[in-house]
């Protein structure tokens, strides 16, 4: 069992110190009124440097990243994060900049920022971008705020509803609700695409917009996207592009050309910045010209070859985050796009789609594929063929993959496919690597019939076995208490 950092070290083992100040140390009890002072010490760890280094090294050995192996986590685009980008974000001339430095002292950074606004506009077919949102869901929030501000500015106060497909990520309805919209769910048709009749029947002058992921969460391109756009626009709504799946079309087609009014992109998906164990991400938002006035402040503008901040935007929604966004993440994505260029982005997209379709073909014999046709960057299988007679679930297959050395795909999403397992190989995986994974999946399918206990009890060789989630949620222990 691994000890917590609080269970290691003894009082006085830490050796951190500051240089001499060359000043007398005042007594804080004299310099500040007692009402402002802390009574109970925080009781932080007291551990030597070497032991703390070992502690975190050991923790890292019980984590699994893309650098450890194949990570086909559908909807998350776990592609390789190039090392040069990590280096770039840590150059002191980019990493050690205070956000309130005068623009003349950060011209290189502002040029990067400005160019990134322009680059993302070109990639998505939009007219302007904010790089402020810190994550995909945060981008959605900024987007939905813009939709609200746009309608309010038109005096259109009756638009209180937001549409989302039943296959949408949970962030879509949650975002719409957070900005005060009632959510209307649009059904998917048997082909896994937006049901146009359902959309038409629910569309009216109370609808502010439709939030759509394309390719959708089933990995399928919304073939009738132009009709969808027309239905939404005719009713006075706006069409929002959730860029979670941009990797399936980047360099090949652009949301701006499909009729979308605004988009967010996930730099930590499509543009290779690492996921960091859950963040930081970056979720820039792009808009067509009619929505430019509502973008958050500030934007970076170029005036007479000098870059500066533009705060003078009276219709702006304000701010969603301090300062200008996750600049360090933006640097990495910028370096990635610089390395690839337009052709490289298209090549990445083509290979992502090639890999997904290749795996779909290879797995169809052994696994049920509910919508088995040309997909984009990801596809869905489920455990229907494995369910009988031993009651094997998708979760069992996922856990068994851990024994084979893989991070499992996304499971139980989207909600409209029962027992879904969503596989997204990304373009940075070789055929060799995928063939290994496919062999593992075939072997697991065989085990499901012959030795089901191997699945039901999986994982067998991870650092722990399956955990008691019920206990964790019924009697939550969310911090360490001294015994």
């Amino acid at each position, binding site marked *: 069992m691994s000890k917590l950092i609080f269970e290691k070290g003894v009082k006085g083992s830490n050796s951190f110190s500051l240089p001499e100040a060359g000043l007398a140390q005042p007594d804080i009890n004299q310099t500040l009124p007692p009402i402002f002072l802390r009574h109970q010490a925080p009781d932080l760890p007291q551990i030597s440097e070497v032991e703390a280094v070992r502690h975190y090294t050991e923790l890292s050995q019980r984590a699994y990243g893309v650098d450890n192996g194949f990570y086909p986590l559908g909807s998350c685009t776990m592609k390789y994060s190039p090392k040069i980008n990590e280096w770039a974000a840590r150059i002191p001339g980019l990493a050690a900049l205070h956000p309130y430095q005068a623009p003349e002292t950060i011209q290189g950074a502002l040029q990067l920022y400005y160019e990134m606004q322009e680059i993302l506009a070109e990639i998505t077919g939009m007219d302007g971008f904010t790089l402020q949102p810190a994550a995909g869901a945060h981008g959605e929030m900024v987007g939905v705020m813009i939709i609200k501000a746009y309608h309010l500015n038109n005096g259109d106060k009756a638009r209180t509803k937001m549409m989302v497909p039943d296959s949408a990520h949970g962030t879509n309805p949650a975002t719409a609700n957070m900005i005060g919209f009632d959510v209307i769910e649009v059904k998917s048709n048997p082909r896994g695409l937006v049901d146009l009749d359902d959309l038409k029947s629910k569309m009216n002058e109370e609808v502010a917009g439709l939030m759509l992921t394309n390719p959708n969460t089933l990995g399928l391109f919304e073939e009738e996207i132009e009709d969808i756009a027309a239905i939404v626009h005719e009713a006075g709504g706006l069409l929002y592009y959730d860029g979670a799946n941009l990797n399936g079309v980047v360099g090949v087609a652009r949301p701006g050309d499909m009729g979308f009014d605004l988009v967010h992109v996930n730099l930590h998906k499509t543009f290779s910045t690492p996921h960091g164990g859950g963040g930081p991400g970056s979720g820039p938002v792009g808009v067509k010209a009619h929505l430019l006035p509502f973008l958050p402040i500030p934007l970076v503008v170029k005036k007479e070859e000098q870059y500066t901040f533009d705060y003078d935007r009276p219709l702006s929604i304000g701010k969603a985050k301090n300062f200008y966004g996750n600049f360090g993440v933006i640097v990495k994505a910028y370096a990635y796009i610089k390395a690839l260029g337009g052709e490289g982005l298209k090549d990445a997209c083509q290979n992502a789609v090639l890999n997904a379709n290749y795996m779909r073909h290879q797995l169809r014999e052994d696994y049920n594929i509910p919508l088995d046709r040309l997909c984009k960057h990801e596809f869905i299988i489920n455990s229907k063929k494995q369910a009988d007679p031993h009651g094997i679930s998708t979760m069992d297959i996922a856990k068994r993959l851990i024994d084979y050395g893989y991070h499992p795909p996304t499971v*139980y999403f989207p909600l409209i496919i029962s027992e879904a397992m969503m596989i997204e190989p990304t373009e940075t995986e070789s055929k060799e690597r995928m063939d290994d994974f496919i062999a593992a999946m075939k072997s697991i399918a065989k085990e499901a019939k012959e030795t089901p206990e191997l699945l039901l009890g999986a994982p067998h060789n991870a650092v722990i076995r399956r955990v008691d989630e*019920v206990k964790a*949620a019924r009697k939550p222990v969310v911090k360490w208490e001294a015994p």
Partner: protein
Amino acid sequence: MNVPKKLLYTKEHEWIKVNGDRGHVGITDYAQHHLGDIVFVELPELDEEVAQGESMGVIESVKAVATLFSPVSGRILEVNEELEEAPELLNEDPYGNWIAIVEITEQSELDDLISADEYKSYCETLE
């Protein structure tokens, strides 16, 4: 699936046991089974006025969440505080453990509820 005869049901999977103007409200066996291990119950507040079909609480399991809709309009007379510490009681005995007692103000609303047989056939259509 257990569906006691003497109770009235909603299509949202609540039951109510009527005793004059008092109704014990809970969730059905079908509901607890489909939610899985229940980890938390958000109870209504005492004296709160609830309307038929409106939210009066929330039931959470590890991977799902369900709104508890009030089968009738009325005022909350009692809540089952035992569930705060032991939400698993709803899994163990969904009909033996009520969630709240409602003072029924509109007796006619009981006509909107369905019988055990109707509820049972309804559940069969969901399978």
